[in-house]
């Protein structure tokens, strides 16, 4: 099937895919062949081809999470050839296209590997630990209604822009998967920074960072050793600077409050 580039040649690939029926059963790598893959396909469309083929043969298709396929929902989470979201920098798995691979390639596809992200099935993992960290304090405690006019809270553009950069985290977990310690520091720091930078976040600034970090530890994420692979593999470019902000916020909170032991 011709795509945008009429000269693009279809590819034949070998896939090594992690198969695991459920959390209780051990998994293993299984080899599959896919043929006639257009370079214009997205990586997930290539997996669609595999799954349609498996289903037609009466075999169980490979389970994986995905939804918007526009790089924004944070659902897709494949560890491709040993890298979060594969070889292309600043790209989610759904926006990765097969033209980044060559005919005859062998591609290894695994789920995120982290104790805090247990496998549901095959390539799908449970990332609810991230939700619980946000529930521990990743918000400004305002009820609906009774808020002041939007323009009564002026915010310098540079501050607002920095907060926005931190707020663009899509919660996919690539940072945890990329980290040798399976640390969630980049994820946590993005939310802490966003709200610490903004005037709206000042009231709960100290309790927020303490509670979120405490929850991060409870969930079993590893410690940060400042390697930086999280930021290098982040598909939306969340900066390592946020971790520095988080550390400062945490120390300040600990030095000045007695909210938590």
């Amino acid at each position: 099937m011709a795509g945008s580039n009429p000269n693009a040649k279809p590819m034949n690939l070998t896939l090594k895919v992690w198969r695991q029926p459920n959390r209780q059963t051990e998994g293993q790598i299984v080899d599959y062949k896919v043929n006639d893959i257009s370079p214009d396909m997205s990586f997930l469309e290539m997996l669609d081809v595999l799954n349609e083929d498996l289903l037609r043969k009466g075999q169980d298709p490979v389970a994986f999470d995905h939804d918007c396929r526009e790089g924004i929902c944070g659902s897709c989470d494949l560890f491709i050839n040993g890298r979060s979201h594969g070889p292309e920098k600043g790209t989610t798995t759904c926006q990765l296209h097969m033209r980044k691979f060559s005919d005859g390639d062998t591609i290894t596809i695994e789920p995120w590997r982290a104790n805090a992200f247990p496998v549901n099935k095959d390539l799908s993992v449970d990332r609810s630990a991230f939700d619980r960290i946000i529930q521990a304090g990743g918000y400004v405690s305002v009820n609906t209604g009774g808020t002041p006019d939007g323009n009564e809270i002026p915010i310098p553009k540079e501050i607002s822009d920095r907060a926005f950069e931190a707020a663009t985290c899509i919660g996919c977990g690539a940072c945890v998967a990329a980290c040798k310690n399976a640390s969630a520091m980049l994820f946590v720091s993005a939310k802490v920074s966003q709200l610490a930078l903004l005037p709206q976040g000042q009231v709960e600034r100290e309790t927020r960072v303490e509670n979120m970090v405490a929850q991060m530890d409870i969930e079993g994420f590893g410690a940060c050793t400042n390697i930086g692979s999280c930021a290098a593999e982040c598909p939306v470019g969340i900066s390592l600077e946020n971790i520095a902000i988080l550390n400062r916020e945490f120390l300040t909170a600990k030095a000045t409050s007695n909210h938590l032991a």
Partner: protein
Amino acid sequence: MVLNSKAPEGPLAEKWDKHKFNVKLVNPANKRKYDVIVVGTGLAGAAAAASLAELGYNVKAFTYHDSPRRAHSIAAQGGINAAKNYQNDGDSVFRLFYDTIKGGDYRAREANVYRLAQVSVSIIDQCVAQGVPFAREYGGLLANRSFGGAQVSRTFYARGQTGQQLLLGAYSALSRQIAYGKVKMYTRSELLDVVVVDGQARGIVTRNLITGEVQTHAGHAVVLATGGYGNVFYLSTNAMYCNASAAWRAHKKGAYFANPCFTQIHPTCIPVSGEYQSKLTLMSESLRNDGRVWVPKTKEIAERVRSGELKPQDIQEDDRDYFLERKYPAFGNLVPRDVASRNAKQMCDEGKGVGSTGLAVYLDFADVIKRTSAEAVSQKYGNLFEMYQKITDENPYERPMRIYPAVHYTMGGLWVDYNLQTTIPGLYATGECNFSDHGANRLGASALMQGLADGYFVIPATIGDQLAATPPKPVTTDHPAFAEAKAGVQARVEQLLSIKGNRTPDEFHKKLGNLMWEYCGMARNAEGLRYAKAEIAKLRKEFWQDVKVVGSGEEMNQALEKAGRVADFLELGELMVDDALDRNESCGGHFREEYATEEGEALRRDDEYAYVAAWEYMGDNQPERLNKEELVFENVKLTQRSYK
């Protein structure tokens, strides 16, 4: 049944205040005795769940995603409208109301639309207070931009990721209520039926997508916030999981489905590149501010472009047809979405389309780059150009973008009254899953506004009216209606697994999508619609004889999930065709070829069709019954839209 919108009497501007005074209130101490089920955690659902919990209700919230942060609201790019008049450019609540009614081609309910415009201003305040990082001016105040269909700058935005930032704001409010224990969150749970007891919505049946467990949940009221049905067309800008099943299950339990044929085709999407295509990606409408739309002037030149012999940048000015500028000199490339889409299709139908498939037109930035600079263009549209290049492997700074219309939004949905209550008492519909505010065509930056208006401000005020009349006694799943609904869901799962046919759910879905796109898409006619109706009925029959799903219902089984959704699309698709056949006029996104002006523009027929078509389910394989809500316009004058 006579459809009563329950819109309050009196002057437009006073209706909502008056109504809020007249609805019954639930005593603060009694609120904790009521359980409210909210299904879906996009903008409407997350906002509703958080706000209801803040009021004191016990909320059970459901999403089929792994987290409430992933709903497709997150993908909205452009912005959110609000009648703040921060720009001093003459905006007002009435102007936003007027633009929305007119943009919807006079097929929406005045009272609802006015309320939407009224609460729009509070939405911005709410989101700012939550810490949503909207774009700002150097003085620290909020920035605005202009958007299609409006002559004022009233759109608030956060770069090209407004939906993401608004959803994460609502998600944070929801997370806070989960932490307080006021919201019990059920993730990876898909609604498969609504439970009605003695004519009242009393609960839902869900399937856990990891374990396959079918569960029942009871509540005093059920709020659906389950999005639109654009994926009936298989290819759309919707996310892969977006589906109509919750709304369709509710419909089969008695909720009327309104204006199902009102679907929006967005003109600027990245074209289909091959059979394997799983979804389509939008390029923001804002690009039409600077890009010029054109095709080669003749079929012969177009053929040489398609074969790769000729590059678009080598085609002389004289050999190009800037068809929107030619046909609509007043609005040019900025005509509304429906007009731009239809004209692109017409050019391709005439054989002047480009790209290897011939189903694309150019959106060219060469002029603006020459006038300003590539850098200036990058500042404005950099992220979009980057996304385009990632998907197509073509550089839009050097070569015009190829675009083609794609299904983007559904204006139709469950019929609701002014309280957002469906025709099942106790069942509410919010956001894209209801029909209420956009008429036959939605303006840009209005979907986010409606989802949050419904969730933060409308439902919390109106739901009390029904609950106050309901005794605050605990509701349980003991009633036989729960067991019956659960057994029905389990039987359907078993049936899908037992067919063991030869064709995958996706094969049926693609075929349905092709039929819908071809005959119930950008242009429709009676003959084509009748053909599609027969073909869909045939396809549905084949589905139940030949669909292939492997594995069991007691595990994570994505093919099984898909099969259930496709089964519902196959029924809804036929209703969309019925509705398009009934509406013998052209309006907004519904263009019937038989009803066009001499210049080929949409011809509305207000004398006969100024009504909401609300369809009533009458049983399996029975024709649905049409109920009408007459639309009364007291505050605007109905005019034929003209963009010449």
